[in-house]
């Protein structure tokens, strides 16, 4: 299994509070991604990174920010969580030229 660790794995929070999800990789891969999974939508790309301090928006980036200060860590922040951000969040590494993705185990976030 690819060395990808997500934390926390489960979190319940209240509307309006900030939340940060962490993705840590031991593969030294250049590309990292955050996806969210919702029933009926499959997975949708939130943000991705192509290097330290190099990030870009994905399909559903509104309400989310990211940071990558080290190769191994990619943080996803919800500045003020809303109920529509209740979801399962997956970090992934890989891609690039023609490569496949390797996914973490997911972080289940519930916003009340």
């Amino acid at each position, binding site marked *: 299994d690819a060395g990808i660790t997500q934390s926390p794995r489960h979190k319940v929070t209240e509307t309006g509070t900030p939340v940060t999800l962490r993705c840590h990789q031991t593969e030294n891969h250049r590309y990292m991604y955050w996806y969210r999974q919702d029933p009926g939508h499959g997975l949708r790309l939130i943000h991705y990174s192509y290097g330290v301090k190099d990030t870009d928006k*994905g399909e559903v980036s509104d309400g989310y920010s990211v940071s990558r200060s080290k190769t191994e860590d990619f943080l996803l922040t919800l500045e003020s969580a809303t109920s529509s951000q209740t979801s399962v969040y997956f970090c992934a590494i890989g891609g690039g030229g023609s490569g496949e993705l390797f996914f973490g185990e997911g972080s289940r976030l519930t916003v009340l």
Partner: protein
Amino acid sequence: AQSVAQPEDQVNVAEGNPLTVKCTYSVSGNPYLFWYVQYPNRGLQFLLKYITGDNLVKGSYGFEAEFNKSQTSFHLKKPSALVSDSALYFCAVSVGSSNTGKLIFGQGTTLQVKP
């Protein structure tokens, strides 16, 4: 707009029978196509990909997929299903040829294999 469709929410098949999970896509340019599988409470696992070349692609666990450009399809197949194949399957297409991690996913198809 680029999109992926998996027309069946669920596919039911008996163990030992062949299985097909359907996927159609709409992209501009040459598609990079992928299949991923997800077991309960787990992340997605890569099964196979089509980048270029032979239209029949072989992947993990005995799965294969056929790229059909004229029908814009990339159906997943297996000659003989196992109960352990029961899972959620996702078809995906790469948005950019320079980064195959930027994917558009279908909504997923649940495969149920019964003994």
